[in-house]
């Protein structure tokens, strides 16, 4: 009996030697450093359930049932999402990087709907971020074009060879809003005057100013306004009446509302919040040269190394649409039904008709580079957007519209201007 046992044992030993892997476990003394990762992966993901010898059938099926439910729910969600989103044929995608204040007025979605109705093969996506980040996104090639309102940054974008073919689309004005009681007495004053009054009231403890405090276009405008009356932000920060919100326009307005303070705002966000009864602040200082806000579009430069994959054709198509009669009309319409006034003024008809020289002058001073909305070296295959043809039309249109005010010197002025544009 013993011999047979010994023989069997030797066989077992031999068999064991053929399966070379040694036992590897957290055994009380048996500590090895062999990790066996691949085996564990295969094991836990595939083999584990079949190896549960000790669990009764009902326990396993309950676990399986739960997993099944989760998978089914996920499948339904996926199906629902897929149906609603992908049931349309695939389109060309255009990614537009823009600023939050512009996006949140809702005008861009409005433009998108109309643009896609006209060009069904296009799918426009807006990435809305702070101005600084929006421009950076485009610099990385993650967006195909930018739609912003910060001329200095726009110039850097063009000058750094990131962008080409800038077109000014529309304009409006920033406003200074504040409590209806108006403790600083700024209603109707010029922006510079208003800010001086706010400061002195603030130093007296009767007024408060809330600043965006981020790097947005609105904040840049505010900083330049303070600068125009000789004050820097560093100085202002140390004064108690000057608060920095460090957040978006709505949050800043809500804070100003709470504190019964003054702040600089764009028209769109102000009207939205006012209409929603989120704030009681009133508009105190309105349109003037220093409060001008100009919106432009710039396409990515297809010759830039980071931007070889961008949808340049789509970007140009969208820009052309935005400056077309149809697009400009959309800008003019937007907001009228909701707020009783337009949120944006289209630029192109203004430039074509040359009807308001003062305003055009302001825009030229504020948002033109080297005398043009887009200097020649930053144009690319798009001379038709800037040619004298447009200006000839301007010439003709204004002749038709204003024959009585026609004068030779004006004729000369228009002509030379069109040569420069």
């Amino acid at each position: 009996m013993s011999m047979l046992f010994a023989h069997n044992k030797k066989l077992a030993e031999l068999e064991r030697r053929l399966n070379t892997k040694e036992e590897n476990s957290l055994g009380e003394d048996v500590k090895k450093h062999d990790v066996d990762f691949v085996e564990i992966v295969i094991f836990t993901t595939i083999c584990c359930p079949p190896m549960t010898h000790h669990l009764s059938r009902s326990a396993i099926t309950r676990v399986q049932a739960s997993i099944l439910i989760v998978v089914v729910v996920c499948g339904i969600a996926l199906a629902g999402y897929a149906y609603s989103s992908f049931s349309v044929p695939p389109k060309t995608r255009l990614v537009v990087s823009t600023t939050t204040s512009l996006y949140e007025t809702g005008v861009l979605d409005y433009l998108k709907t109309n643009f896609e109705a006209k060009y069904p093969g296009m799918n426009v996506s807006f990435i809305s971020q702070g101005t600084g980040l929006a421009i950076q996104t485009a610099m990385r090639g993650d967006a195909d074009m930018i739609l912003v309102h910060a001329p200095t940054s726009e110039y850097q974008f063009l000058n750094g060879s990131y962008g080409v073919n800038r077109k000014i689309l529309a304009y409006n004005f920033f406003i200074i809003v504040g409590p209806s009681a108006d403790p600083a007495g700024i209603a109707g004053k010029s922006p510079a005057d208003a800010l001086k009054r706010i400061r002195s009231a603030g130093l007296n403890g009767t007024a408060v100013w809330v600043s965006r405090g981020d790097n947005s276009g609105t904040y840049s405008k505010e900083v330049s306004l303070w600068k125009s009356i000789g004050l820097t932000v560093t100085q202002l920060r140390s004064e108690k009446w000057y608060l920095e919100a460090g957040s978006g326009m709505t949050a800043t307005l809500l804070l100003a509302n709470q504190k019964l303070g003054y702040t600089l705002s764009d028209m769109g966000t102000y009207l939205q919040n006012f209409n929603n009864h989120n704030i009681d602040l009133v508009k105190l200082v309105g349109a003037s040269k220093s409060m001008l806000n100009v919106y432009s579009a710039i396409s990515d430069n297809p010759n830039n190394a980071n931007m070889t994959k961008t949808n340049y054709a789509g970007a140009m198509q969208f820009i052309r649409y935005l400056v077309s009669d149809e697009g400009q009309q959309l800008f003019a319409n937007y907001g009228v039904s909701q707020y009783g006034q337009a949120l944006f003024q289209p630029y192109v008809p203004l430039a074509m008709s040359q009807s308001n020289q003062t305003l055009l002058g302001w825009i030229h001073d504020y948002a033109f580079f080297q005398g043009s909305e887009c200097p020649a070296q930053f144009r690319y295959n798009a001379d038709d957007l800037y040619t004298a043809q447009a200006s000839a039309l301007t010439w003709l249109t204004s002749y038709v519209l204003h024959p009585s005010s026609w004068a030779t010197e004006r004729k000369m002025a228009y002509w030379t201007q069109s040569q420069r544009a």
Partner: protein
Amino acid sequence: MGNGEEDGVLDPITEGLIRAIQLILSGDPEVYRITALSVFVSISGTLLSCVWSVPISAVLALRNFPGKRTIKGLFNALIGIPTVALGLYLYLLLSRSGPFGYFQLLYTPYAIIIGQCVLVTPIIVSFTTSALESVDPDLRTLARTLGASSRQTDAVILMEARWGVILAVIAAFNRAFAELGVAMMLGGNIRDFTRVLTTAIALQTAMGEIAFSIALSIILLGIVISLSIIVNLARR
């Protein structure tokens, strides 16, 4: 003053509650799309993470190797990573001018899935490892003395800890579902494409649409709470 202030605080919330019910019952397609996308993205991210998180946990709990404690500590620490920071790092990786730009994943739902998958990995690993380690060690000895190989004993431990693992996955899903930073940075909150509940709430709040924001947040919380209830029921 008193009444006015009370109305000012309560109104948006009650208005939001009513609006939420209206939105759900009326079948507003945009809200349904946003919700479906949120669910899809978060479940996908969580399940994808499980593929490597559970095996990693098994290795951490059931094996010995040098540096094990450091790695466990690292995963524990990463549970609390700020979503915006993670979103930023991944954004730089997925950007067209970044190392993975070739795939052009940025601003698509797949980028959000990837981001949330990374986000929840430390949660799943940490909780699952903990669940596995808290299984009675005598169970392991018992299995071994009954003849189980080391892998069979691992199976015993894994099955013993199965509810711990499930709870870890649920916790991970909740984190993914309710986070903002990753979805915003990697998805871009594009309407009808990468807009999820959290980014929609952020946008509506920024636009001053407080009631709509609250409605969406009620939907979000409703889903999280329902899931919790379902899991509790299944446990019994």
